């Protein structure tokens, strides 16, 4: 039973355009959400997070939006760069749960 779902296995975007990665969750106890980025043969690296008391958090080109009523969050990357090409994992925790990951979305940014 997937508590964190990333329904798009892959996304292709042109350099300079916006990338939007989506994530849905089912556990209403989740109150802290994170995005990780992963290059091949490396471990996931933390990108940005948001707690449930906020609906938006911004860090440079990266913005995470949280819609608690819809149990949905998204990561916006503007402008996208070829170096952003990687697998992006959405993760969540809260209550008694440890960090739970989605299956990931592979982003390809083409020049």
């Amino acid at each position, binding site marked *: 039973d997937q508590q*964190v779902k*990333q329904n798009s296995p892959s996304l292709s975007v042109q350099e300079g355009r916006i990338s939007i990665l989506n994530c849905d969750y089912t556990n209403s106890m989740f*109150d*802290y959400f*994170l995005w*990780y980025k992963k290059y091949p*043969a*490396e*471990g*996931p*690296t*933390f990108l940005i*997070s948001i*707690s449930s008391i906020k609906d938006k958090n911004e860090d440079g080109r990266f913005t995470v939006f949280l819609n608690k009523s819809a149990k949905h969050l998204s990561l916006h990357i503007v402008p996208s760069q070829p170096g952003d090409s990687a697998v992006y*994992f959405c*993760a969540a*925790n*809260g209550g008694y749960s*440890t*960090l*739970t*990951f*989605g*299956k*990931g979305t592979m982003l390809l940014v083409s020049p």
Partner: protein
Amino acid sequence: GAGVSQSPRYKVAKRGQDVALRCDPISGHVSLFWYQQALGQGPEFLTYFQNEAQLDKSGLPSDRFFAERPEGSVSTLKIQRTQQEDSAVYLCASSPSGNPSPLHFGNGTRLTVT
């Protein structure tokens, strides 16, 4: 080093062999986690330590899996009598405190059971 260090990076084991995977967390990090990542999947939680105490081992798939962190620093994940379905990348992560805080991951150990 500044990051989480895992060894070996790659391990090939014949079915039935025992393996031991090592994790050196970031110095001073209280919490340590082990995750298993199968091909095409996200990391799945295995077990969690706070200092030397194993507070949650609910994700360990069978009693063939055992983890320890005897002095609250280095941790070892041991898999006995390996099976082909154990083939995966095993990720270790640490954080300065308990939830919520981002986890810092190592580069993982890729285990292949033949």
